[in-house]
């Protein structure tokens, strides 16, 4: 038997049901039966976590039935399916099973969002033999792609599927041959997502929180910086709506990261933009950091809370309920303030002004000294200097074990990491890989050291917020105390690992890498 394309054949746009029936001999040879409407919606996180893992999640609706299906992007087989009414949002709300587990694991704290909706009609046709007996079935599919971002539905290629009628193999073979060889209709792809998304003018994976700017080594520094700033601004802007609506906590997170990267690029890559602009926007973006800080802190707390709960003895877990409610209330307030700030004139003006600066033909004020130098020279020198500072301060911090020295070191490491990320495209990726890995490990260690301390402080503040005269809050305060102790213990552990982490970073091998990558042979830019 011929291998049937499981998803049918793609038809020319003009091939309607009636024309198809006529092509197959018309009345008496091919009957057109019922049509049924269906719809399917594709879901993923804003940053395409499922697609990134090679999966698609779709919800198929026919009449009263609604089913979720998890499929590989490039394969036909359904990995798992589950009946589900309503719109899927949080992975935790999905019915238990393999689908839930896989989606929850990949999505983590992200919410499912509808990406594109396909509405279609499936029409059944029957091919008859000379005895008027049905010998094969066809399913004709016509479909449109819908999304709020496009005002009119966009039509997809019609398809026809060949469905066997048991016991009539030769008729099926003949039709398959007719479609593939005589009509030269191609097999339809296994996954509709790419076509449906393309039809609404998007592309799977069109948002990622990972910074990816491609630069040329001898690009004038100013052009390169504009490109980086514009990329960051795009990212920031794309997260504004989701942050305002609090769809999930990652929108705010990504918005803050884009802000922080912008600030870091402003202050780390010196003498490229005019000083006046650097000063102005450093301040204005610092303000964005401020208005978003409180909500983010609460987000982190609420995301951590289930883990906190699990770390307590079972008998104490319920004692965090009151704390959770307070945090949630505080979050509602903070979120409202944040949404107002994002709607405010200063915020909108900031995005508008910054874009205008970046897209302007020429910048106002005195151009930076390095504006016209090749970017790679400018940046290599900067990274090299920062790296040497990290080494020097790091060795001192290992020696002294002072928390303050570790905090300072963390700041510099972060700057170093951002710089390497911005300019990744200028360097040999194989060498870069090792530097990024060791730097990340060091940063994780320093981050843990500082975050746990901040957490403990934060917990103490929260405990102090309870009315300690009220005996009913005692269990809550005690539970918080247990958490604070845990945090401090974790901080101590991080402290204990610090010298090893730093030693790995400061290994001869890694030093060679930095030298090869960033130490400029041509001397200083000055």
């Amino acid at each position: 038997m011929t291998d049937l394309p499981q998803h049918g054949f793609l038809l020319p746009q003009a091939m309607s049901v009636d024309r198809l029936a006529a092509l197959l001999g018309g009345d008496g040879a091919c009957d057109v039966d019922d049509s049924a409407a269906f719809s399917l919606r594709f879901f993923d996180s804003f940053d395409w976590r499922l697609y990134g893992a090679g999966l698609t999640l779709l919800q198929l609706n026919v009449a009263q039935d609604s089913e979720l299906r998890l499929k590989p992007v490039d394969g036909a087989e359904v990995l798992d399916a589950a009946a589900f009414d309503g719109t899927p949002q949080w992975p935790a709300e999905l019915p238990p099973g393999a689908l839930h587990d896989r989606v929850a694991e990949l999505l983590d704290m992200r919410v499912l969002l509808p990406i594109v909706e396909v509405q279609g009609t499936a029409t059944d046709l029957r091919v008859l033999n000379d005895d008027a007996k049905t010998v094969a079935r066809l399913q004709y599919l016509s479909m449109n792609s819908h999304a709020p971002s496009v005002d009119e539905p966009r039509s997809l290629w019609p398809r026809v599927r060949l469905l066997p009628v048991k016991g009539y193999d030769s008729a099926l073979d003949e039709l398959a041959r007719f479609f593939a060889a005589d009509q030269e209709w191609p097999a339809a792809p296994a996954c509709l997502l790419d076509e449906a998304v393309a039809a609404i003018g998007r592309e799977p994976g069109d948002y990622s929180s990972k910074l990816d700017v491609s630069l040329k080594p001898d690009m004038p520094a100013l052009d390169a910086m504009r490109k980086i700033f514009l990329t960051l601004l795009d990212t920031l802007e794309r997260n504004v709506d989701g942050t305002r609506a609090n769809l999930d906590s990652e929108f705010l997170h990504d918005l803050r990261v884009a802000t922080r990267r912008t600030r870091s690029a402003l202050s780390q890559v010196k003498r490229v933009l005019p000083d006046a602009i650097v000063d102005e926007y450093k301040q204005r973006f610092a303000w964005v950091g401020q208005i978003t800080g409180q909500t983010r802190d609460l987000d982190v707390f609420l995301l951590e809370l289930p883990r906190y709960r699990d770390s307590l003895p079972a008998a104490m877990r319920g004692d965090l309920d009151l704390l959770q409610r307070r945090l949630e209330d505080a979050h509602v307030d903070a979120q409202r303030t944040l949404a107002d700030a994002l709607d405010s004139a200063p915020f909108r003006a900031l995005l508008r002004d910054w874009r205008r600066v970046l897209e302007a033909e020429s910048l106002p004020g005195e151009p930076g000294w390095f504006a016209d130098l090749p970017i790679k020279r400018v940046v290599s020198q900067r990274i090299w200097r920062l790296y040497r500072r990290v080494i020097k301060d790091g060795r001192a911090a290992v020696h002294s074990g002072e928390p303050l020295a570790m905090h300072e070191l963390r700041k510099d490491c972060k700057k170093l990491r951002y710089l390497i990320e911005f300019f990744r495209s200028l360097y040999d990726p194989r060498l870069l890989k090792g530097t990024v890995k060791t730097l990340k490990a060091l940063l994780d260690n320093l981050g843990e050291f500082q975050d746990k301390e901040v957490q403990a402080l934060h917990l103490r503040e929260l405990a102090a917020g309870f009315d300690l005269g009220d005996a009913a809050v005692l269990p809550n305060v005690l539970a918080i105390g247990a958490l604070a102790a845990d945090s401090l213990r974790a901080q101590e552990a991080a402290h204990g690992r610090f010298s090893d982490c730093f030693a790995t970073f400061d290994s001869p091998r890694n030093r060679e890498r930095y030298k090869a990558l960033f130490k400029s042979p041509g001397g200083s830019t000055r």
Partner: protein
Amino acid sequence: MKIVGVYNIKGGVGKTATAVNIAHLAAASGLRTLIWDLDPQAAATFYLRVKPKIKRSKAMLRDKKYDLDGVVKGSDFTDLDLLPADFSYRNMDLLLGENKKPALRLLKLLRPMSEHYDLVVLDCPPSISLVSENIFRAADALLLPTIPTTLSLRTMEQLLDFMEGHDLKAPVYAFYSMVDRRKRLHQDVMASPGDPRCAVLETTIPYATEVERMGLERRPVTDYAPRSTAGRAYRQLWDEIRDKVGGLRPRRVASLPF
């Protein structure tokens, strides 16, 4: 997969008409349905426009690994397939007798089909035999079309006695078939309390010429005259059976390739 046998010791009571029409309704509701024509006279096969086979049953009943799916024929209706009758079914009793557990042979043959079907409807030949015992053992429910005459009630009792005697547990649902409301006898029989061992469904199938036309149309009544009295009666019957048997939920989404 549920298996429903349509059975009566007596011939000509409307078994085949029932089997074909409810199988058609089940398929139209989205259940993947197989009708097995166990009667060598091949009436159900004829109604569904398939040619009966000659001599397959030997292999089918003897061969341990016989692939039933390989002899299935698709009908003119989506989700409705047919295992056509075989002329050699005349000797089915003898062939069944050669098996180790002769009364369970059909069930064993049918089991692998659960991958492909939600519902199997067995159209059974009349008489009590090893074939019918196989059917009683395989079925999740037995449907008993009964013409409301005193004689029919007697055969119903015979059947129930037989089942009791052989410790057969399948629930039996009788319903009145070919009912003529003008006949006093029909009315009296239907009003009388039935055998307590057997549930009587509410639906009755009237005597109607549309049903007889099935032989000319070679289609289910529920296809060519769904709104006729008989068509509606079969629909009501199917609804009642579906509720009684339970676990029959069609999945319409299954028909789409996405």
